[in-house]
């Protein structure tokens, strides 16, 4: 793990310099002071996380603290483990090792604070529900079991639909919506949850220009309200325009920090250029041997 950890921050990595960079990059009160290993003001803190599918590692030794109240792009080539990282944070895929805390507590105690926008292709849009029904699902977490969806929840769901510009589509069956509208329904569902940290899996994937603008407007409003938003993003061109922070990922965190510092050709080359042949080969070998990763 050590060699990988070392090139995690791309600029020169040496003792005090790293420390200075860290505080620069993430302007928050002295992190990790006197025993407070998981600061409650850090929306997402990932420590030493490795994730494997079928015993084949897809993420190695991820170490990351997300800055609060920022729009953060999670960028990397196909198969880099971007979705896996998000899913591992939410315990949707098992972690081989590592710790994740959300505002200083394990995820399972903070679920309500985390809003999730899955990929649009992850569900069957032929399902017999209306857009409003789907958005109201964002309220289930705060409703107990057996409690039906109430008027206040429907009101919150309507408001969320309004925020993504789909007020007039509330009663539409979801198959009758365009791809961009479906994506906005998922966004509205996360909004209805009123979380603090949002994890979005490619919300801009194959949406029309109008939807892209609508989504980015909503994201900016969320940031203005102090929310932290981590977005799996494919379009490198728009990263500097849409986001202030970026995480470059390719089976490991290649670099992270403010876009202006980290989003450099050098780092992008490290992320996208050349296959990580040795890491991948090792993963293959581990998978074949049924090694206990």
């Amino acid at each position: 793990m050590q060699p990988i950890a070392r090139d995690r921050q791309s600029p020169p990595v040496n003792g005090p310099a790293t420390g200075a960079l860290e505080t620069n990059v993430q302007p928050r009160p002295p992190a990790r002071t006197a025993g407070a290993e998981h600061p409650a003001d850090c929306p997402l803190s990932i420590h030493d996380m490795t994730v494997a599918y079928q015993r084949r590692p897809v993420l190695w030794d991820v170490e990351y603290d997300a800055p609060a109240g920022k729009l953060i792009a999670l960028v990397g080539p196909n198969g880099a483990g971007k979705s896996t990282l998000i899913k591992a944070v939410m315990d949707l895929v098992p972690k081989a090792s590592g710790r994740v805390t959300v505002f200083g507590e394990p995820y399972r105690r903070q679920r309500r604070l985390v809003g999730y926008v899955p990929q649009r292709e992850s569900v069957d849009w032929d399902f017999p529900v209306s857009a409003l029904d789907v958005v109201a699902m964002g309220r289930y977490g705060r409703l107990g079991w057996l409690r039906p969806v109430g008027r206040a929840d429907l009101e919150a769901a309507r408001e969320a639909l309004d925020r993504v510009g789909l007020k007039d589509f509330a009663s539409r069956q979801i198959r009758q919506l365009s791809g961009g509208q479906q994506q906005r329904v998922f966004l509205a569902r996360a909004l209805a949850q009123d979380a603090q940290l949002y994890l979005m899996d490619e919300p801009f994937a194959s949406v029309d220009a109008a939807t892209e603008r609508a989504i980015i407007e909503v994201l900016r409003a969320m940031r203005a309200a102090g929310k932290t938003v981590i977005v799996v993003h494919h379009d490198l061109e728009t990263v500097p325009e849409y986001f202030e922070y970026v995480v470059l990922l390719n089976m490991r965190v290649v670099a992270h920090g403010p876009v202006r510092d980290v989003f450099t050709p050098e780092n992008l080359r490290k992320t996208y250029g050349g296959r990580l042949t040795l890491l991948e080969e090792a993963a293959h070998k581990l998978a074949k041997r049924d090694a206990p990763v």
Partner: protein
Amino acid sequence: MIAAARFDWPSLVNLLALRDYNTRVVVLGVGAFALASGVVGTFLMLRKRALLADVISHATLPGIALAFLVGSSLGVAGKSLPVLLAGATVTGVLAVLFVLAIVHTTRVKEDAALGIALSVFFGGGIALSSLVQQSATASAAGLDAFIYGKTAAMIVSDAWLIAGGAAIVIAICIGFFKELRLLCFDPAYAAAQGRPIVAFDLLLMGAVVMITVIGLQAVGLILVIALLVVPPAAARFWSDDLRRVVLISAGVGLISGVVGAGLSALIPKAPSGALIVLVSGALFVFSLIFGAKRGSLWRWLEARQLGRRVAEQHFLRSCYELVEDDPRRAFSEGALAANRVWNAEELARMMQVALAGRWIEAAGSSQFRLTQAGLESARRVTRNHRLWEMYLITHADIAPSHVDRDADLVEHVLDAEMITKLEALLAADAAALVTPPSPHRLPSVLPSGAAP
């Protein structure tokens, strides 16, 4: 006795009035089962686990046979329904666990795992049944009833047992409606929200096991899957709202169960299971054709209507192209025929339609001209077509020689909103917006003999 009933009017009247005690018992038992299976079947279908129900039902056979053998050897009445159904439940649950174990611990895929579980458990069941047949009490066994269904054998305590099981299943589906809906629609989101999806999957499968077991007597283990799958599939043709789909599915199930059981009472020796399934199949076909939401009749009518509109718009545009420089000029049917690839019949029919609709009028011998109304429609249709062509050329980089065919497809589905957008996009060319000239050469102005 029901089996002895002949198809005569008095017995039909008796049946409809539920005058006969046996009939009432059967209606209670079968109706409760079929209603509940329509409810839980909806969630099963939406969770895409319908085949698991088939595995469960086939896996009940070894349980029934074992329960009979064990029961008789212990001196308990082996044939009593609660004992047999308890055995069925045990092996049904075992089959589910068997499938889950294979899928989660090996690389065998789910469909193969389902096939393995179904055949192995059912094979074991057949082997055990042959043991039952050989035993001294074979005549008393009547295990056939569980394979093919035999409502006539139902007694009142059986019916109440079935109704109790059905009530539990319905209560689960109503109580956990919200959770089951989320589980079926988006399990990953449910898990992220902290819903124990494995527990809810097991709850759903438990409900399916219960329905399967209580349905054995009514429709038999081979056909019980039908009442879990057919009613929800039929109901889906009627509504896009899960609550209504559940209600309609329950209704379809209830009607199938009661009508099917009733028919089997009227027709001597008719197997009730088969009749119940046939009734549900008829309701499915009816829904498939007439269903308000996705019924094929409406889709066919819509397609036909669109086809007509397409033909009309092509006709109007052809007329317009012929007389574009002077709208009052007359033209012949022959000129129209040369303008497009028509077949003669289609063109002749469109001429009739256009004359009847007063889009065109006769102007001398075999000459026609556009009426004022026809001209306006034709101009609008042509404008849409050309706006779309220009959009394709300027915004989609399609060669002018190819846009005509593409626009031919799209122009008919352009609605007012899209046309406004087109106008905004092409606003730079404002002068052209009146009715832009065709961006490519038209066949009618091609030198004669030129290839189209």
